[in-house]
């Protein structure tokens, strides 16, 4: 080997990092079951799997956040024991977490300097800033070391995470679902950077469940399922179907068939809606849209552009400043939540644990949250437990909800099953209009498949659906029309036949639709 072993970031190259026979148990779960995994210098190795397959656990072990119950880790052939992230950082291993690990109230330089050993315990930010500028030069990542994190966009924050990883533990970088919060353009930029880092000899691990990204980027792909490695394959012409089957263990269809359905009358009409966010700043600046019976209107946009406020305002959880909302021709602008529910509105909220369910309540109790006072569930002031149990049992069967019993507290169910429970509850009331906010976020592929098919089926049966999602694939898979939201304004409305990812991406970044 005549190649230099020092990387441009100043770290010693990690020619190989190997995990052998890793076992990690959590109470009641075998998260990693004798897992072998290896990554080399100059390689992007994708780690693919469903939620709960054990990818993140494995990587947290490599980063020193968890200690394995069994197994060994070797860096360049030498066995290592990491007791904390500080140990991993010292060996040149950095990790970029799915939720950015940045302190919003600190500057870029302070975030990078956090936890660094300095002589006399004094901060030496000038040296940190100088090195940051050098690194951002070498890797072409523009950052301002003096900017506060809260001033930065999501894409910029991710750049900070990358530079931080390069600065602190740069030889091997673990990226945990790094594209989840980015616009398509930001994803492209990220991939350019990652490929450049690969050329320079960094070892990169890319955790994802997005198949096309894994195909675009990686050299090798390791698929995990139920805590075990299914296989490690080179990325040369392997089909997405094959990868999905490896992940789930059977064939999946994430894009439901779309029969032609005649578009019915307008069910939901929103006019000039102005809404403020929690900080009393404008979140929606005059939104108008219609949703017809038998159609899915998708709201595309990067997180925080007013989607949450739109959903909450229609659902009655947030007051509008001005504008009009009509359901079936009747104004519901000032209606209470209960009145909206009775009028035929159903809502799948973005935060299923906070707004969708009560975690400590049982499955059965959560099923009747909205109509527990109405027959057949209640007679005068008393519950009819028989009726409640029959109703719940039927929904559990129909929606294939995996729960030990009707009495199980909802917080003990998986994300996908909680989401199915909410879907079951909302659809059991036979709504006219359904607002689905991020219905499959954080949900595994099989549940995603199920939820998407159910939404499509509801559309076919004539429900008017407003789908809000930050996942462009989901918007494209389901929507009849796509509305792009940016900073509280509609950038354009596109029919599904005319939709193309690049155009939508530009609109999501604030470019108005060309007339």
């Amino acid at each position, binding site marked *: 080997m005549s190649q230099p072993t020092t990387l441009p970031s100043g770290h010693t190259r990690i020619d190989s990092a190997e995990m052998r026979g890793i076992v990690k148990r959590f109470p009641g779960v075998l998260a990693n079951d004798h897992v072998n995994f290896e990554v080399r210098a100059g390689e992007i190795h994708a780690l693919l799997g469903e939620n709960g397959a054990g990818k993140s656990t494995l990587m947290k072990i490599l980063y020193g956040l968890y200690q394995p119950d069994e197994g060994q880790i070797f860096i360049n052939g030498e066995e290592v024991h990491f007791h904390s992230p500080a*140990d991993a950082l010292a060996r040149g291993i950095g990790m970029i977490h799915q*939720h950015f690990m940045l302190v*919003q109230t*600190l500057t870029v330089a302070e975030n990078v300097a956090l*936890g660094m050993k300095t002589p006399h315990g004094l901060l030496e930010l000038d040296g940190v800033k100088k090195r940051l500028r050098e690194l951002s030069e070498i890797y072409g990542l523009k950052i301002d070391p003096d900017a506060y994190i809260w001033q930065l966009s999501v894409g910029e924050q991710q750049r900070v995470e990358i530079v931080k990883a390069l600065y602190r533990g740069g030889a091997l970088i673990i990226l945990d679902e790094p594209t989840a919060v980015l616009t398509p353009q930001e994803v492209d930029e990220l991939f350019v950077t990652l490929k450049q880092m690969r050329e320079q000899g960094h070892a990169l691990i890319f955790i994802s469940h997005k198949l096309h990204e894994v195909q675009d980027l990686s050299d090798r792909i390791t698929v995990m399922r139920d805590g075990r490695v299914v296989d490690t394959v080179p990325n040369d012409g392997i089909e997405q179907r094959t990868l999905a089957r490896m992940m789930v263990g059977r064939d999946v269809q994430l894009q439901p068939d779309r029969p032609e359905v005649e578009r019915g009358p307008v069910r939901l009409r929103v006019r000039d809606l102005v809404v403020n966010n929690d900080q009393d700043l404008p979140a929606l600046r005059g939104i108008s849209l219609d949703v017809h019976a038998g159609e899915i209107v998708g709201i595309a946009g990067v997180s925080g552009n007013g989607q949450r406020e739109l959903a909450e305002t229609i659902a009655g959880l947030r007051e509008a400043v001005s504008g009009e909302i009509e359901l079936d021709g009747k104004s519901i602008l000032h209606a209470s939540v209960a009145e909206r529910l009775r009028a035929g509105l159903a809502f799948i909220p973005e935060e299923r644990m906070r707004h969708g369910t009560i975690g400590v309540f049982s499955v059965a109790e959560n099923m009747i949250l909205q109509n527990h006072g109405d027959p057949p569930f209640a007679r005068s002031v008393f519950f009819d437990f028989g009726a409640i149990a029959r109703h719940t049992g039927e929904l559990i069967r129909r929606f294939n909800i995996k729960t030990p019993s009707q009495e199980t507290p909802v917080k003990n169910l998986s994300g996908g099953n909680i989401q199915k429970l909410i879907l079951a509850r909302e659809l059991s009331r036979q709504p006219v209009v359904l607002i689905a906010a991020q219905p499959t976020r954080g949900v595994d592929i099989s549940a995603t498949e199920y939820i998407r098919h159910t939404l499509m089926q509801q559309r076919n049966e004539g429900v008017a659906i407003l789908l809000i999602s930050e996942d462009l694939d989901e918007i494209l898979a389901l929507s009849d029309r796509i509305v792009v939201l940016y900073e509280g304004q509609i950038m354009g409305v596109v029919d599904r036949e005319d939709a193309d990812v690049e155009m939508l991406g530009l609109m999501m970044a604030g470019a108005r639709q060309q007339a």
Partner: protein
Amino acid sequence: MELNIVEALRLAIQFATPYLLASLGEVFAQRSGVLNLGVEGMMLMGAFSAIFTVSSKGFGASPWVGLLVGMIVGGLMGLGMAIVSVTLQAEQGISGIGFTLFGLGLSSLLFKVLAGGVITASGFGPFPIPLLSDIPVLGDVFFRHNALVYIAFLLVPISVWVLNRTSWGLQIRAVGQNPAAADTMGVSVARVRYSTVILGGIMAGAAGASLSIALTPIFQENMTEGRGFIAVALVYFGSWSPWRVMWGALLFSIANNLQIWVQILNIQIGGADIPPNLLIMVPYVLTIVVLVFARQRARVEPAALTKPFERGEN
């Protein structure tokens, strides 16, 4: 003691000391994400242990030794609070109140058993600063205090410097805002929080000692009279900034001695004197008012305040 504005201002600065010491310590604890409501009890224990060390009924030691003992006792209670709130992850508000009640009960018991219900000591005397204290008016207001007053005010810029210019300060700020992020950068969240809560206890102990052996060389049951809680409120009032906390301490010190100001300025309501009980009430009412307004500054509140940290929950 002649009552005039100069004397009133001097007292305002002097009586700000216990607030200031306790609040600065609480700033550190809260900036790292721990709400320590045990300050009151730590102050009481610091006050009693300091005066007992100094008094002839106890060890007859020098005031400096008394101060040190008060700080150690406060620090030990801080350690207890850290174990309960950081390691055992108990609800911080409730466990803090527990420590306050514990300190109140234990200091009263020790006072009865060890001191027989009366204790005095010759504590810190005035320490005029040479030359500066000779300046007319200003010298009297600022430079004729006991040593603890100077120390307390010097600790304000020192606290700012520590929080902003040292690694430890950066870790404190990070842990209070986003402990998970600090954890991934190799910072031990527990270690940082232990250090700040213990420091808070030490400072509360010093605040108590400043009451019992510097301001009023005497101990009485519950002599802090809620100052520890006011010190916690001051941290909110001061939006977690040592400088603003200092202004708050001065404001409350003036509110504490409002009777003096009313006499000096000859304030009357409808030609009658204001009932003194009404004036004594003012600091407590002010606390409530201050907290209502402090609510609007919640934006700068450490995001992780009162939240125990456990790895892997994010």
